[in-house]
């Protein structure tokens, strides 16, 4: 069988890559005083038209954010149109990750009773679920309403959520709903990624690495909460890249978070975990470890720009680079809005 030719799509994506913002642009923006200066800086970027359109409608902060969302969403839609059907299926599998993330955001928002506007502004501009679907879901009065509407629209993610809804209504523990979404997504994704083509292997590599890091975070969190090993196992995902089920079960036996870091020391994630752990010890914020692991995922996936230029590696790397750029811009404008010092904003950015 002939290898799929992604020459057309890859050339376009390579050209789109040249429009991504480099580190110097972020450094300049960090030195700016307020949002109006950042808006002027965005004039020279590919976000110009969408940002201006939205700023006229919704004001500076919300307008810039909405503009970034609209531009990114349009970019991703363009990629889905220019790649061939086989590659499109694979990229949609990857984009499902952001569907899960967006659904979790909506569920979390409903769990804490957040306003619809706040939920929508926290959604990632990626995924296969259309914006209008997510907005309608965010408008539902509670979690039950969200899940019922998803079931009515036959959104596949409604199945695991419906199965867990009863338990949630009893104990109001959101993590069961979130875990059921993760499990459903990763199991379905891995089942779809059968085949030995390079493209499938690339997507599999991305997904299985994420499973590893999700499992590590879960183990760290649950170990700190002193859960019993058999309880921890219930929240682990099978199919990781480096950590197979056997080693996960062993890690679940570890009773102390410090010991867990030591147990993972020799794994490929050892170095990044150590760094995250040191940051946690200084700041006392557990989220810094999570952010450090996320950085690892982002860096590894963006490094696919240097992988086989004839595969869909370039497309995968571009999607990650683009979404990372938007997240960085959102952190930057939110930071500037509340007069956060540039040093603190820089620490929160992932500049690859």
């Amino acid at each position, binding site marked *: 069988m002939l290898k799929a030719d992604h*020459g*057309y799509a890859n*050339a*376009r994506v390579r050209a789109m890559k040249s429009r991504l913002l480099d580190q110097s642009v972020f450094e300049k923006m960090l030195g700016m005083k307020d949002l109006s200066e950042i808006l002027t800086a965005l004039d020279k970027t590919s976000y110009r038209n969408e940002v201006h359109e939205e700023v006229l409608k919704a004001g500076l902060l919300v307008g810039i954010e909405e503009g970034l969302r609209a531009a990114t969403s349009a970019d991703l839609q363009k990629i889905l149109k220019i790649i061939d059907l086989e590659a499109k299926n694979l990229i949609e599998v990857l984009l499902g990750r952001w569907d899960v993330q967006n659904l979790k955001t909506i569920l979390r928002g409903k769990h804490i009773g957040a306003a619809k506007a706040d939920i929508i502004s926290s959604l990632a501009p990626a995924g296969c679920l259309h914006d209008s679907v997510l907005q309608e879901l965010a408008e539902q009065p509670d979690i039950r309403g969200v899940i019922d509407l998803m079931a009515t629209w036959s959104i596949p993610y409604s199945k695991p959520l419906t199965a867990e809804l009863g338990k949630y209504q009893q104990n109001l523990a959101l993590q069961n709903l979130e875990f059921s979404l993760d499990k459903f997504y990763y199991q379905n994704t891995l089942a779809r990624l059968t085949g030995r083509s390079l493209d499938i292997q690339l997507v599999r590599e991305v997904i299985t690495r994420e499973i590893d890091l999700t499992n590590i975070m879960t183990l760290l969190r649950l170990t700190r909460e002193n859960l019993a090993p058999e309880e921890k196992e219930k929240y682990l995902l099978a199919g990781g890249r480096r950590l197979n089920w056997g080693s996960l079960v062993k890690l679940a036996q570890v009773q102390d978070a410090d010991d867990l870091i030591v147990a993972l020391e020799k794994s490929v994630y050892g170095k990044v975990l150590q760094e995250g752990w040191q940051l946690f010890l200084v700041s006392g914020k557990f989220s810094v470890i999570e952010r450090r692991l996320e950085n690892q995922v982002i860096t590894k996936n963006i490094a696919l720009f240097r992988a086989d230029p004839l595969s869909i590696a370039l497309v995968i790397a571009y999607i990650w680079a683009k979404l990372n750029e938007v997240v960085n811009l959102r952190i930057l404008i939110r930071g500037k809005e509340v007069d956060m010092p540039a040093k603190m904003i820089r620490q929160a950015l992932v500049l690859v």
Partner: protein
Amino acid sequence: MNTALLGFDAAFAVALSGLCTAWAQSRIGAAGAGAIAEKPETAPMIIVLEALPETIILFGFVIAFLIIGKM
């Protein structure tokens, strides 16, 4: 017999180099179209790149011409 074989060789040289040129141009054309779609300013460069593989068929033609000269 000898003349027929030489004629076949000449035809083979042109046909094979023609196929190779077509394959190379198709790949460059697809990627070039993508590049022009995003960055129209690259069009002159792409046209030059698209024309480059035509040297392959010129070589094939020269070889065929030399073979025919031996007939």
